[in-house]
């Protein structure tokens, strides 16, 4: 019995056990204090669907040995351009989402290529270079958002008439478009079926992709570059493919995120978007050397459920009133960066 428990703890992992028990505790608290638990879970589901693709985007670079892709904003910006152009041309609904996805993907292929070249030239420092490349791109794009000559008055600042607004509101036909497709209630908990389906399709795509020749070469390069070289796999090519796909997934990720959220946040908003995603995959159990789809899915569910339900429950239970800061925000900072720090300082990276 003791052995079994020990092996169970080992397979599930201590961080997940801690977070899972904390989640359960919160749910019990919510039940005891008579909160709308179904509502909390519905919100969690929405958040999971919204953020899934970002987390999935991190999988391939980890597999290819590139480490944590802090450069997600590079792809996110490409998706944002698609989203903004679609709004300028007043597209709505499915057309809008398809248009933004196509434009985003096209731009992400180009940006991802250059980003991949950069990462290939800076082997060993990918994480730091990626972080600051992302930051630099985001701040450069701020100038672009200010100077872009758009005509749609709903997008530009009312006063002055120049530059895009910080937050753009999606039209009612577009907001939650995917979330609402086939959505249903499961024991009172709303399920954003469309978004989940998209996430599932992409997970399946990655699952199949990793079993193709290209996917296997990516895994081989990440596991042992020298061995991969000996078996005739081009390391740089595999790394490039991983980076490119990751950038494209990030671009699609922001399209999914925006339709679910109902808003597009510009300027410095994408700056830190890689960090929660990275926290997700690490909480799911990934390390710098080992990552899988299961880690992506578990991590997204755990982390985003935690973020969604902590604040309402804590506020209800402790009855904090007044100008209290957002304790979820503090919790998010500590957990996500603690997880990254933990991953970075593990011996041998595994």
């Amino acid at each position, binding site marked *: 019995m003791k052995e079994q428990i020990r092996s169970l703890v080992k397979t599930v992992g201590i961080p997940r056990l801690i977070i899972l028990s904390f989640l359960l505790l919160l749910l019990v608290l919510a039940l005891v204090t008579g909160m709308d638990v179904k509502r909390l879970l519905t919100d969690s589901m929405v958040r999971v669907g919204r953020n899934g693709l970002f987390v999935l985007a991190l999988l391939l670079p980890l597999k290819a040995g590139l480490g944590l892709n802090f450069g997600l904003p590079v792809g996110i910006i490409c998706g944002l351009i698609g989203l903004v152009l679609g709004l300028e041309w007043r597209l709505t609904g499915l057309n809008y989402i398809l248009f933004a996805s196509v434009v985003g993907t096209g731009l992400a292929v180009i940006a991802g290529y250059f980003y991949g070249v950069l990462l290939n030239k*800076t082997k060993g420092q990918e994480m730091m270079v990626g972080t600051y490349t992302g930051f630099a791109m985001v701040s450069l794009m701020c100038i672009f958002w200010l100077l872009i000559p758009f005509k749609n008055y709903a997008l530009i600042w009312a006063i002055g008439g120049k530059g895009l607004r910080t937050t753009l509101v999606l039209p009612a036909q577009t907001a939650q478009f995917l979330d609402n497709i086939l959505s249903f209630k499961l024991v009172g908990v709303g399920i954003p079926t469309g978004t989940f389906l998209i996430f599932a399709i992409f997970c399946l795509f990655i699952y199949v992709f990793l079993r193709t020749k290209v996917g296997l070469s990516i895994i081989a390069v990440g596991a042992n570059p020298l061995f991969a070289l000996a078996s005739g796999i081009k390391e740089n090519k595999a790394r490039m493919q991983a980076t490119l796909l990751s950038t494209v997934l990030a671009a699609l990720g922001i399209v999914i995120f925006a339709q679910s959220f109902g808003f597009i946040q510009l300027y410095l908003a994408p700056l830190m978007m890689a960090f929660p995603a990275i926290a997700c995959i690490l909480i799911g159990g990934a390390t710098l050397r080992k990552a899988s789809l299961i880690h992506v899915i578990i991590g997204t569910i755990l982390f985003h459920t935690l973020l969604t339900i902590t604040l309402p429950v804590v506020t209800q239970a402790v009855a904090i009133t007044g*100008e209290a800061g957002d304790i979820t925000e503090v919790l998010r*900072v500590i957990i996500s960066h603690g997880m990254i720090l933990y991953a*970075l*300082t593990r011996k041998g990276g595994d």
Partner: protein
Amino acid sequence: MKKLTSLFLSNPVPFIFAFLCIVGLWIAKIPLPVFINDMVTRMSRNSFLTLSLIIPIVVGLGLNFAIVTGAMAGQIAAIVVMELGLKGLPGFIVACVIAIPLALFFGFSVGKLFNIAKGKEMVTGFIASFFANGFYQLVFLFIIGTSIIPFKNTTILLPQGWGVRSMVDLINIQYALDSIFRIKIPFGRFFINIPVITFLVIAGLCVAINFFLKTKMGQEFKAIGQEPHVSHIYGINVDRNRIIATMISIVLASFGQLIFLQNLGTVNTYASHEQVALFAIAALLVGGATVKKATVFNALLGVLLFHTLFVVSPQAGQKLFGQPQVGEYFRVFIAYGVVALTLALHAMKAKYSSSS
């Protein structure tokens, strides 16, 4: 001319930025005395922080993104001094004394982390500062003012009685160092204020760094920076020296932040420290430093150039595009871009040298 060309080729970054600054100044058309006065203030405010980055570079740790923790120590000390109600120079000195043990502790912890994550020091320091920031927020938002850390000063606390305001007026220690001895030089219709003592402190640090690098420990640091393995074989305790270097850097950063705050006179409790590493590092790199090599000269030149750009960009953006935000985002871009570029160049060089 030939000499100048070779100097440019060996280190193009400061030249490029000097050029940008001159163009920016020409476009922005800021009155010269106003500009000079602003630059003197900014030099006195930021030099110490930038100088605190040099020692970790010498020992081979790269750019110390974790000086943010030092800035936190400085801020904690500043707020504690406000609570104690100490005024002027004594208050400032007490703040430094309070900051030292905190910074030593942060430095020791970060140094330990660096030793575990060898080869990934920079990203570890970067993430460590975010992590520390989480705890900082926890303490400042939810613990200070409660029975665990009882604070009484209502100008610090939020109206609800616990948690620290996001803006704290440091009226007690404002200009504590600057106002000891100040020279006013008339320039046209304006005056240029020179806080002599602050500059003397900065000069003292410059001399101290150069002197330190000539001592036995300084020489060991240099050896470790160049050849960690050989140094280890020669019996130098590499790990211990790396921790000491981190501790020195973070203690200096805490003083640097206090100098910064006493000049500014207010502290943005939840934001003042966050950008410290970015701006100090960007300034150092603009001055021509690299991940492997940095001097006092790089730091001072870098602060001058980087902050010139900082002052002129909004104005230049206003003049060129009719929008000051363009310039503001441009300077953010410059800060991130120069760090990205330097890191990329460093990684490329490291890759070629290891593959050849």
